[in-house]
């Protein structure tokens, strides 16, 4: 199947909430921004688009619309049509299938449906959620127990919606990052739980702290990769030196000087984003003019090896550098510190370090947005952002579209946002797609 990455050009919806039809053209070069009164379907559309990419049959099965069509510039379109009798037909290019969700007991109480909607997955552990909803609804224990038993039985049967297998492969061709309006809380899988425990452990924590942990992990993984390449280079080094010495090739002094500078600059850049220790690697306080012709091939071989070692850090270094630059350019009186130990900390004017969780709500919001966009996307991902303006001062709202777009440009990310903030669009009215007119 051809690859439609990054070129979603249109969203066509019929019968959203049983009343609204929309044909939304996406801007191909800049973020597209959905606006509309509460309840017009902005967030719902973002959720459904994300569900298409994620192969989330539950959300697609329950999408409150009759027809849904994603139009791509080059790749095959995706469409969903709801059947009057229940279930939906989905198409992706020439592939076709149906989604049927197991009917719930018709006597199912309203509070239990709400609990299910929150949990979204029949196979997830629901007891705690069910208990909370039952308590809030003053449900009897018998009713609670009936519902609990129903869910336990469905879990044992591993009941899933009947959906085509290809639905789960769409994300490979249509990657989507969905940044919700609940982005300050991150759900992460608890890897420490024993495999024998059937239920996955889902831990909820502050997203900025999760981001710090993630950055630390990425730096540590890059360290490991760097070490592997270093060992390879060190093994090759004696042979490479002998080859260079025997080749009789004369090393250009000017070129050697440039190489020294290049390695030096790269090493400084890597250190500045926490990727190399200050005492790590080669310290080239070298004046190329003072290097004799016999030693020059050795130095050159060494520097070439150092360059190759550092290349494995390039991708992460680019992201960390962009992240730090973005944060430091916006925060007042705080600067980001990146390290393999703690991932992300912030230094105050007096040098005191604080944790990301000690940032203001607006600072956390912008940190999470930047982190998600820079670290959680692959090239040409469609980034969906619900209410990017949350907690942001109007000055940050003014530049938000340009800021996000700037961060995503290198990876050719496409953006679709939903907002209620006039300041976000004040300078870009042409990017607005209003859902109010229907």
């Amino acid at each position, binding site marked *: 199947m051809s690859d439609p990455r990054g070129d979603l050009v249109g969203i066509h919806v019929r019968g959203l909430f049983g009343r609204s039809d929309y044909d939304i053209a996406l801007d191909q070069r800049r973020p597209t921004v959905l606006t509309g009164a509460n309840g017009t379907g902005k967030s719902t559309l973002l959720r459904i688009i994300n569900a298409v990419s994620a192969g989330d049959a539950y959300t697609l099965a329950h999408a409150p619309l009759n027809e849904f069509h994603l139009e791509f510039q080059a790749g095959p379109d995706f469409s969903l049509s709801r059947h009057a009798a229940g279930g939906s037909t989905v198409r992706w290019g020439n592939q076709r299938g149906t989604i049927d969700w197991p009917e719930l007991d018709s006597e199912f109480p309203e509070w239990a449906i709400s609990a299910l909607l929150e949990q979204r997955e029949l196979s997830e552990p629901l007891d705690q959620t069910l208990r909370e909803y039952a308590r809030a609804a003053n449900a009897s224990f018998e009713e609670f127990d009936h519902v609990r038993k129903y869910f336990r039985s469905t879990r044992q049967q591993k009941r899933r919606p009947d959906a085509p297998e290809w639905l789960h492969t769409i994300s490979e061709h249509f990657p989507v990052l969905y940044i919700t309006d609940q982005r300050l809380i991150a759900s992460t899988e608890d890897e420490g739980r024993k495999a024998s425990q059937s239920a996955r452990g889902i831990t909820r924590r502050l997203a900025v702290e999760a981001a710090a942990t993630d950055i630390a992990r990425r730096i540590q993984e890059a360290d490991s990769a760097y070490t592997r390449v270093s060992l390879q280079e060190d093994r090759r080094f004696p042979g490479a030196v002998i080859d260079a010495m025997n080749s009789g090739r004369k090393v250009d002094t000017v070129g050697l000087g440039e190489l020294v500078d290049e390695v030096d600059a790269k090493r400084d850049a890597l250190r500045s984003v926490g990727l190399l220790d200050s005492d790590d690697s080669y310290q080239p306080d070298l004046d190329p003019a003072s290097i004799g012709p016999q030693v020059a091939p050795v130095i050159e071989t060494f520097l070439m090896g150092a360059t190759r070692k550092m290349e494995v850090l390039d991708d992460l270094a680019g992201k960390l550098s962009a992240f730090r630059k973005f944060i430091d350019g916006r925060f007042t009186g705080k600067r980001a510190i990146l390290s393999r130990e703690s991932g992300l900390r912030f230094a105050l004017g007096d040098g005191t370090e604080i944790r990301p969780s000690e940032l203001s709500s607006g600072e956390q919001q912008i940190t999470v947005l930047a982190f998600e966009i820079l670290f959680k996307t692959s090239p040409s991902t469609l980034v969906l952002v619900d209410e990017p303006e949350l907690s942001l001062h109007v*000055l940050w709202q003014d530049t938000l579209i340009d800021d996000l777009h700037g961060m995503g440009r290198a990876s050719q990310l496409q953006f679709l946002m939903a907002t209620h903030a*006039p300041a976000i669009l004040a300078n870009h009215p042409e990017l607005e797609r209003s859902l109010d*007119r229907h």
Partner: protein
Amino acid sequence: MGLAFPSPGGFAQSIYQRRRALDPRIALVVVEGTTDRRALLPFLHSDAIVISARGRSNAIAAHRRLNLEGLPGVLVLIDCDGEVPADLKGLPDLIISANRDLEADLLIELGALRRFALDVVADIASTRADAEARIDTVLARAILVAADLERVRRAARFVGARTRLIDPVTGQKRKVTPQDLPRSQAWMMDNHRPDLDDIARDYCAAAGWSSSEEAAVAAQAAVSVTVPCVRHGEALCTPCDARALCVGHDLVELVSYCLNALTGLSLEILEVDRGIRISSDRDLVARWCVSTRGQRWAESQGVALFPEHNTTGG
């Protein structure tokens, strides 16, 4: 429709918040529309912040609010295309464009349109004089069509007919522009002045007028061309039409049609728009009345409005 501040007061509050939060040395400038913002930005200091008010009432409300709070440091630039309350005229921190809008200032006063167009046709013209002759023809025609289009707009306002349409892509209301009028390209390529009735007919189709509205607009527009200009006492006075009637963005659209036809290129309006922004003569900018008054304001406030090299004329 479209997302907007619920009231001018809401916009004024947002400007107040910005000014309070900003370093006092950074200039905060409020303009009426996004095209004004795009026109102005290339000439300002890189730290200066320009906010589009999306409407004159918002811009004026912001000015009143800041003055009420005694909070200086905000410069409001408004277009010379309508009534300005008497108490706001002549204020140092409220500047009115020389032409109909700031963009028209840039295009006409600062010669940006001519300079850009000359660059575009340089490859197909036999000599510099040939290029200049071609471009002068294009510009004269664009001014003529843009002025007549504005006459029809004003006539529509006068008779109470709609002047805006719902953009099919953004879902927002916006002004009808040449791209919405099917014959606008033909008018630019013809050798005779377009008939006001034809413009009214195309406008009618775009804005959705009734036939009686169309007739009333055409009649009113016909009357307006007979009114002599104040400065020269002439009806259909080109210099005064350019100054008083031409909307900057209309000129850009109309000129881009001609440039494409002349050169065989397919420049999009946005590309032309961008090209024009970087084509203005910086010496002329320094002598532009908005620039000189703006610089005086900036010096009185201790803010950086223009880059150093741009303020010699101030």
